[in-house]
């Protein structure tokens, strides 16, 4: 939403400067700088152990940095315990209190702030209505489905009006259909509330579809930050190219052979076109004759792995209907436009 604001100019909702967090010899977070804007949906994407969850816990205050600074809306929060921070968390396992009713769970934050019974019950009802759980106040968390628990956790975190909402893989335990539904709902909620959401996930599809900006984590560092299109279209490293979607990674020489600058480059499978026999090459495209090594059907697309006589192995994703007479071992003609190759900063 606010992705067009220069991060350097606005007061960041969350700012990390050189943040380090080690666990013994393990560098969980190894020098992270970032700023998350007010009202931004910010995704932290990375494989497990990449430091994304530790970063979220550093914002929440469950962890303290070993070095560096953390600010929330301009206020230094190092050393500040979780209960003195204006951020709230939706936990991966939801962390609903099993001995309290759904209504009391949602109202817990108000209760510790000394809000009276009648008022907090009223607000809990409203919060539950917001997440479409009207009338569930007196249930126990154990009586709810996974999706409903997720909504209760969301209502409980939002009722105390945090300045930043932290979500730790909140959709991980839900099945696909429910997950897609919740993605839309979360996005809608974030838009209406105008709140910063910091969303940790290892699911690149989730990050791309929901976030205003994505930070890709690897080995305790952020390797790339940017809007989803940018991260997907112009991955800066081999890791980003491979983790966010899939990509062919070409060496400088291979890129040059396809008419692109002599730099390590990435090439998305869907940017490779399949040519029917006898068709002329489109302008600006290099035509490669190759042998099909493998074909796999994936519903909307068919993935074709092909090897050129020169030894270059490429994966192409073509619309499933288009790939008629394709079989393993057969010949294929591929067309690659040189501007589809994205130069990367490093091949690593």
């Amino acid at each position, binding site marked *: 939403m606010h992705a067009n604001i220069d991060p350097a100019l606005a007061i960041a909702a969350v700012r990390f400067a050189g943040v380090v967090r080690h666990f013994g010899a393990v560098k969980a977070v190894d020098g992270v700088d970032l700023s998350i804007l007010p009202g931004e949906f910010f995704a932290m994407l990375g494989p497990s152990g990449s430091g994304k969850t530790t970063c979220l816990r550093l914002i929440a205050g469950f962890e303290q940095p070993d070095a560096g600074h953390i600010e929330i809306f301009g206020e230094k929060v190092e050393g500040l315990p979780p209960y003195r921070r204006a*951020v709230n968390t939706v936990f991966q396992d939801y962390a609903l209190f099993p001995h309290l009713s759904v209504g009391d769970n949602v109202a817990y934050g108000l209760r510790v702030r000394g809000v009276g019974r009648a008022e907090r019950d009223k607000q809990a009802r409203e919060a539950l209505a917001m997440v479409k759980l009207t009338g569930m106040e007196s249930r126990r968390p154990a009586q709810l489905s996974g999706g409903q628990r997720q909504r209760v956790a969301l209502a409980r975190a939002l009722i105390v009006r945090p300045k930043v909402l932290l979500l730790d893989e909140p959709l991980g335990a839900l099945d696909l259909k429910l997950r897609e539904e919740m993605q839309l709902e979360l996005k809608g909620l974030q838009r209406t509330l105008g709140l910063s959401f910091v969303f940790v996930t290892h699911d690149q599809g989730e990050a791309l579809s929901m976030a205003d900006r994505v930070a890709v984590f690897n080995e305790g560092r952020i390797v790339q930050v940017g809007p989803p299109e940018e991260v997907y279209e112009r991955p800066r490293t081999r890791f980003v190219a491979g983790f966010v979607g899939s990509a062919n990674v070409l060496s400088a020489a291979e890129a040059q052979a396809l008419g692109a600058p002599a730099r390590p480059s990435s090439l998305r499978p869907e940017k490779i076109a399949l040519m029917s026999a006898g068709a002329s090459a489109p302008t600006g495209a290099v035509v490669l004759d190759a042998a099909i090594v493998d074909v796999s059907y994936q519903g909307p697309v068919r993935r074709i792995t092909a090897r050129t006589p020169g030894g270059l192995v490429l994966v192409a994703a073509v619309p499933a209907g288009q790939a008629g007479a394709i079989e393993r071992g057969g010949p294929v003609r591929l067309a690659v436009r040189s501007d589809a190759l994205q130069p990367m900063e490093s091949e690593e």
Partner: protein
Amino acid sequence: MRALVAAPHEGTLRHLSDLLVRRHNLLVLILLMPPLLWLGMVYLGSLFVFLGQSIFSIDEFAGTIVRKPTLATLAELFHPANFDILIRTVSIAAAVTLLCAIIGFPMAYYAARYAGPRAKAAFYLAVMMPLWSSYLVKIYGWKLLLAKEGAIGWIAGRLGLGPALEAWLALPLVGGPSLSVSYTGMVLVFTYLWLPFMILPMHAALERVPNSLIEAAGDLGASPGRTFRTIILPLALPGVVAGAIFTFSLTLGDYIVPQIIGTSALVLGQAVYTLQGTAGNIPLAAAFSLVPILVMALFLTLAKKTGAFDAL
């Protein structure tokens, strides 16, 4: 068709195991038969036969049991001398339980939340080890510690707490000539003896509280004290209640510690012991034995009312 796995060797045993796998109710029945026979007939049966005697009475002159149902024996429990015994015993058991909970909770909490695997092993060993030595040795050991010239008095003197100890012993009820013949001493010894039975269930309950619940409470603005009162304690309560059942009932039934450490006033266990032994008054002994059962039933009802088992 060739068999995919080698044909199992047929036999009676295999037929039997096939049968048990197919009909697991039969298996459950076989597994439960010995304990059911033992618990149901030998243990509970004899207990009820004994308790049933409480509706009989004793012929004061002949000293024989009159097998005619009456409530007179049960009413005897409310005679001042007998009622004193009940009040005294229940108060001691309550004090012991409270003290065990207060001392045990921090230990259980440390072991459940902070101890690493090695520290946890050491913790289990330290809690269990006193259970390996003889009960009588421990009581006599405590008798020496509590005696007027014993270690506790000596340390109190060295720390300049001698007068405080004297003042405590001068108090009515809890005091006495020395710690080793006072209710204070008795409560201390009981607390020592039953502490493991309190710590272990509390530890088990605390271990089942996920860390994320404690983090969530803090995240929602609860201070550590608030988190403890509203989240940790309610969730650990089933464990505390389980521990309290042990410490409470063990104290209610014990008659050896009061004999060695206590004052000349009887507690319930001693009363039952003398009534069924020297006095031969089985009906009154049975009536006394009903009391711990009723007290525990009351305790559990109250615990359930306060929501101690809501988290189960």
